[in-house]
């Protein structure tokens, strides 16, 4: 039971509600009995689809009822293959209804992706539209994002289109962690770097740095872009992770980032995200040379963000330990 506020009601309201619920419950019990008895006698037919559909529209989480529908679809596919598209389209309608009732219903989303596989002419455009609508209502619905990734694969949609989709989402609202996440998956596949220092090619890296700057200057308290920036700047390609190479180009990227973070710090001197990022940049640029400044910043972090003082203490002790190494493996 998530987010259901406990409300005070009068005795009269309670009685009305109890009567409504008793009625609903009676209908539910009759339906479930009928479904299970039909299933036992092998009657996987239009009637069982109708009754399971009615119950699921009220409660889309009863996975066994979705299984019964799957058994029925499989049976139809085997006995009347010509009819299956018609049934698939009914499943799409039902799952859409159920997703409206509960947009976070694992079962409804899974059933939809399962049934896509059974039809012969799926309209992927319509599937993308459904995702668009759903993400309009809740841009962080991870079920919908996952479903989108499934239809991208099935429809062989170019990843560049998805990157554009992610850009559109982010420019509409920088605080969309789901969309930043999506970029982290897409970019290294579309624009891999040729050197070991970074994940992306130089031009794309510069563009991304720019996008992050826009985000963090718009709302320096929004953590999405900060997490993304840390990943983008401080992750090396796995095969090169042991190398300590640091080309001058990448060092200048780090210095540019440091400069703009310092600017932001002038505007927001107590913002923990920017202080932490300055720390991390100084560490990567010259851990030993900047040690004193870094430790001062760490101590400031403890004051502005006391909830995480344990983490900052750990960070401080790591920095104290750093001796001869100039670069820090992540």
């Amino acid at each position, binding site marked *: *039971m*998530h*987010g*259901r*506020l*406990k409300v005070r009601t009068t005795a009269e309201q309670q009685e009305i509600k109890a009567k409504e*619920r*008793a009625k*609903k*419950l009676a209908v*539910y*019990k009759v339906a479930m009995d009928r479904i*299970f008895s039909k299933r036992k006698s092998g009657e996987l037919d239009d009637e069982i689809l109708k009754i399971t559909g009615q119950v699921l529209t009220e*409660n889309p*989480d*009863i*996975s*066994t009822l979705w*299984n019964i529908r*799957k058994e029925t679809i499989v049976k139809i596919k085997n006995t009347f293959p010509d009819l299956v598209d018609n049934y698939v389209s009914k499943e799409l309608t039902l799952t859409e209804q159920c997703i409206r009732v509960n947009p976070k219903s*694992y079962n409804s989303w*899974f059933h939809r992706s*399962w049934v896509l596989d059974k039809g012969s002419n799926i309209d992927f455009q319509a599937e993308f539209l459904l995702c668009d609508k759903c993400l309009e209502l809740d841009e*962080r619905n*991870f079920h919908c*994002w*996952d479903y989108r*990734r499934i239809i991208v694969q099935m429809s062989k949609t170019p990843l560049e289109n998805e990157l554009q989709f992610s850009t559109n989402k982010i420019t509409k609202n920088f*605080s969309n*962690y*789901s969309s930043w*996440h*999506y970029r*982290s*998956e897409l970019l290294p596949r579309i624009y891999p770097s040729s050197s070991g220092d970074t994940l992306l090619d130089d031009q794309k890296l510069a563009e991304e740095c720019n996008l992050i700057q826009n985000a963090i200057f718009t*709302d320096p*308290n*929004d*953590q*999405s872009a900060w*997490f*993304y920036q840390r*990943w983008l700047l401080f*992750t090396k390609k796995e095969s090169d992770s042991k190398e300590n190479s640091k080309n001058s180009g990448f060092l200048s990227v780090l210095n540019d980032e440091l400069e703009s973070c310092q600017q932001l710090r002038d505007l927001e001197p107590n913002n923990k995200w920017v202080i932490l990022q300055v720390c991390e940049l100084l560490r990567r640029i010259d851990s030993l040379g900047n040690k004193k400044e870094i430790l001062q910043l760490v101590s400031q972090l403890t004051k502005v963000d*006391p*909830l*995480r*003082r*344990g*983490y900052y203490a*750990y960070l401080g002790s790591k920095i104290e330990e750093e001796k001869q190494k100039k670069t820090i493996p*992540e």
Partner: protein
Amino acid sequence: MALLMNDIVLPKDDDIPDLLLSKHAHFLASYGNNKDDYEFCMTEYLRMNGIYWSLTAMDLMGKLGEMDRDGIILFIKQCQHENGGIGASIDHDPHLLYTLSAVQILCLYDALDAIDCEKVTKYVVNLQNSDGSFCGDQWGEVDTRFSMCAVACLALLGKLDAINIDDAVNFVISCMNFDGGFGCRPGSESHAGQVYCCVGMLSITGHLHLIKADSLGWWLCERQLPSGGLNGRPEKLPDVCYSWWVVASLRIIGRLNWLDKDQLRKFIMACQDVETGGFSDRPNDMPDPFHTLFGLAGLSLLGEPSLKTINPVFCMPQSIISHLKVQPQTLTI
């Protein structure tokens, strides 16, 4: 925009109740006494989970004896299917989610011999795919939650070697994200519940060295909001259940002190329902057995002396896990 942060305001310290153990026990023991209760009937599809939540919570409070042991064991027997899997309730289909709950319940009762455990092992083994992932049941849904269910179930049965562990681990690692967290499948966004499943899975199989513990630990401790409560993803509201998913994960990777335990404790205590007993997701919402277990389990992880010590991987009393001689891995800094 900091003002728009998704969080709640806690009541004043004096208005936060003490730990109401006897009320919580009453709430759980009487849950489902009325078999015609609407909520009770409508949650039949997850009954096996519900029994596990209630029994584990009761056991943490030392009140397991108040529950109907024989009735519950008989019920579980009736829920085991020919293929070895266990369903949420009678007539409901078998699934890893309910199979694990059933095995956990039987471990609490030291009654694994009530079901055919060899068949359970076979059921779990047959759900592993060639890429190492696990389906939840015969219909093919893949999710890292099911990887955790599979290895937890087998570890409790002492049959962990029945599956291909390397493949199973590789699949979980392929779900690791840019922030060090884990999602449902490769490419899925990090979510504290999935993080717990993946960290737990790697703990049971002894592969925690594959985790980027510092990145993940930072992401996890950033789930704590000014109210002290924890959310499951950035920019989301706090919820008592994350007092389990986040805190257990941090505990397993040895970084529990990266968040403020006192403030978290206040948040959990404020989620108690002082009238009926039980915990809700946030203060003043409706309580339920799910949040009651994870509220109590979170308090136990924080060292609450009036509760039994909980095992952070299996979410069962440590005494049970020790008795079974199961030793999941944990990290230290």
